[in-house]
């Protein structure tokens, strides 16, 4: 399809503020026109009436597990799962084996992505060598190789002196430092949110304070160094409040929240399901509501899934031993659409936090339907009900707390560069 028209959908483009029923014309992989009743001429026509047409989503926090842990996921399966969830661009964290702390690994990931992934893939490089929190990586070389950010995600740089130098040095390359804010000494052996649920279950608690302490530290480091600090997976009201105050003061701090921290509380853990175990843990009701409010008012810039595949046998163990993390791509849209259904957010604002806002954080030209932009497009039916079965999904893993549940809102088409890469009826189509 060199020329096609998506006809009669509700087009939402946060970058331009457009929200209305219109046709969208694509020519040679680029957005050519948006308007009412566009002339068909020689274009193919896809009827998308009653569906929403938005930029393909952008996820700046994912784990694709390749190289090294391909039994959990690889760049091909992760990319396929991404487009099945409406994502056209994903950024992958550095905790692979070997760690992405060297340009050769960054090259490998980008090579693989070009061959295997229907979604665009941008590597995030480690902030310190081996994720050890000691020696900073070669940031200039890594950015030249294609890294879009630096992060020791999964681990926290506990040494504040090292964290300071990493942030200072990052100004040389002008990319964000993404921080996983959890004080290891306060987390201890905690596996669930510390509070009434950990007390009822008798499982070791991980206090919200562990996050707040490090968000506070890293905001102060951002102020000192002038670095762009991005707070990954905010989970507490205290962190939301600190980010809000910091931004009012003009500090360069941005933040993301996951669908699961917006939709689930620690009560989900009461059945000891290891697919409710992640870091940071699911919090209480008040924290969840603060995250929703923070996303709605823009304190939290974007939604990121923290897509973290783990094999069935790795999660099929006792709660303390099970690894942290859950799948994210294919359930993200229906889960976050709840914020629109409850009228906590306008549709355009929710779409912004899935598209333009995360694209801006990593300074990529995606997440927009501007004329001439690459035609990365998601088409979805916000009201379609379906039952999620991870065994039928595209990830190699199945670790999801939403397995077997009915969800509302489903992606019907995903385009990358104007190519149809996902069709809900036919599945993932490319590469």
């Amino acid at each position, binding site marked *: 399809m060199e020329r096609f028209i998506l006809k009669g959908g509700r087009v939402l483009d946060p970058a331009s503020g457009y929200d209305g029923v219109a046709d969208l014309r694509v020519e040679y992989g680029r957005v050519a026109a948006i308007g009412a009743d566009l002339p068909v001429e020689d274009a193919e026509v896809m009827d998308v009436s009653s569906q929403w047409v938005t930029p393909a989503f952008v996820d700046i926090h994912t784990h694709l597990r390749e190289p090294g842990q391909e039994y959990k996921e690889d760049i091909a399966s992760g990319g396929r799962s991404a487009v099945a969830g409406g994502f056209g661009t994903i950024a992958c964290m550095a905790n692979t084996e070997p760690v992405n702390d060297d340009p050769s690994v960054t090259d490998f990931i980008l090579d693989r992505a070009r061959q295997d992934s229907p979604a665009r893939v941008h590597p995030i490089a480690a902030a310190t060598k081996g994720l050890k929190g000691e020696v900073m990586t070669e940031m200039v070389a890594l950015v030249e190789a294609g890294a879009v950010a630096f992060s020791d995600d999964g681990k926290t740089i506990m040494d504040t002196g090292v964290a300071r130098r990493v942030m200072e040095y990052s100004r040389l390359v002008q990319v964000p430092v993404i921080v996983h804010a959890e004080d290891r000494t306060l987390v201890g052996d905690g596996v669930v949110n510390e*509070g009434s649920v950990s007390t009822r279950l008798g*499982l070791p608690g991980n206090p919200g304070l562990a996050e707040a302490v490090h968000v506070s530290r890293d905001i102060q480091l951002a102020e000192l160094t002038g670095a762009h600090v991005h707070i990954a997976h905010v989970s507490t009201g205290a962190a939301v409040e600190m980010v809000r105050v910091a931004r009012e003061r003009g500090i360069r701090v941005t933040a993301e929240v996951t669908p699961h921290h917006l939709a689930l509380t620690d009560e989900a853990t009461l059945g000891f399901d290891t697919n409710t175990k992640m870091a940071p843990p699911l919090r209480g009701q008040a924290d969840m509501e603060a995250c929703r409010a923070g996303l709605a008012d823009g304190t939290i810039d974007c939604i990121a899934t923290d897509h973290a595949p783990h094999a069935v046998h790795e999660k099929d163990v006792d709660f303390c031993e099970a690894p942290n993390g859950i799948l994210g791509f294919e359930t993200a849209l229906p889960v976050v659409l709840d914020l629109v259904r409850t009228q906590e957010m306008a549709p355009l604002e929710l779409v912004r936090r899935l598209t333009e806002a995360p694209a801006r954080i990593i300074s990529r030209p995606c997440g927009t339907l501007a004329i001439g932009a690459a035609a990365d497009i998601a088409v979805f039916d916000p009201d379609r009900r379906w039952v999620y079965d991870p065994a039928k999904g595209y990830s190699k893993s199945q670790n999801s707390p939403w397995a077997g549940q009915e969800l509302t809102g489903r992606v019907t088409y995903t385009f990358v560069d104007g190519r149809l890469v996902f069709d809900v009826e036919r599945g993932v189509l490319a590469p």
Partner: protein
Amino acid sequence: MIGRDLLCIDDLTREEIGTILETAEHMREVAARDVKKVPTLRGRTIVNLFFEASTRTATSFEIAGKRLSADVVNFSTRSSSLSKAESILDTARTIDAMDPDAVVVRHNVAGVPKRIADVLEVPVINAGDGAHAHPTQALLDLFTVQKEKGRIDGLTVAIVGDIAHSRVARSNIAGFQKMGAEVRVAAPPTMIPAGVEALGVKAYPSVREALDGVDVVMMLRIQLERFAGALFPSIREYSATFGLDREKLRYARDDAIVMHPGPVNRGVELSHDLADRRPSVILDQVRNGVALRMAVLYLFSGRPPGQSALDGNSGGD
């Protein structure tokens, strides 16, 4: 209750607890007989699946099963060495494939009996999981108090020690509250779990206040090897502030009894003479534990149709 799992006290109604305690009373009579055995569970197989070292509880369940003429098989292994070889659920499925009639599970991580119960058809009896639950301990403690005091409703119980890491505390709080008693807890703040109010108890920072006028004092075992120096500064300070001796016991009612799930760290949470003599009832708890576990095995693993609990004089296998 036949065919159901017993994972925590919340699985039971007040009436069901009453039934279990009544049945335990009958079971105690068996221990008084010349031949301590009834054929109630003859031909049934009970597997004790212990992932955590336990002599007392495992022995108690084994004797309980044998007095009911069940074939009792002990499968015990340390979870640390096991996890490398096969998953817990694989172990459970393997045991299940041998067609037991009930599986008794203990594990050092909260929630494992629940995970096992989710995959097994047969009743799973929780014999203690991490800091989560120990329902048969709570039931035997209820049974012991019922026998000592003639009632549970309206009593006041103080639990003293490491509430945060204790499954005994959690199950006893739930059990005594369900049966109408008031429960207080006392410990250093480092041993009080976050949001303890969720359990419906009031936490006291001193033994003196907590014991004021109580009918039952329940002392918990301190895990010295794990927590000395981490949650409290020294054994000496813990013993002086939260250990029970006859001096501190004077704050309780004159007829108060002292309980401990065992094994006792003598001179730490309990003074030497209190451990051995009344008003402590520690060995009664152990004795009642066998009868109570007989009642649980009988009520949960099922009786053959038309046969009452204590038919026949001996099993003999």
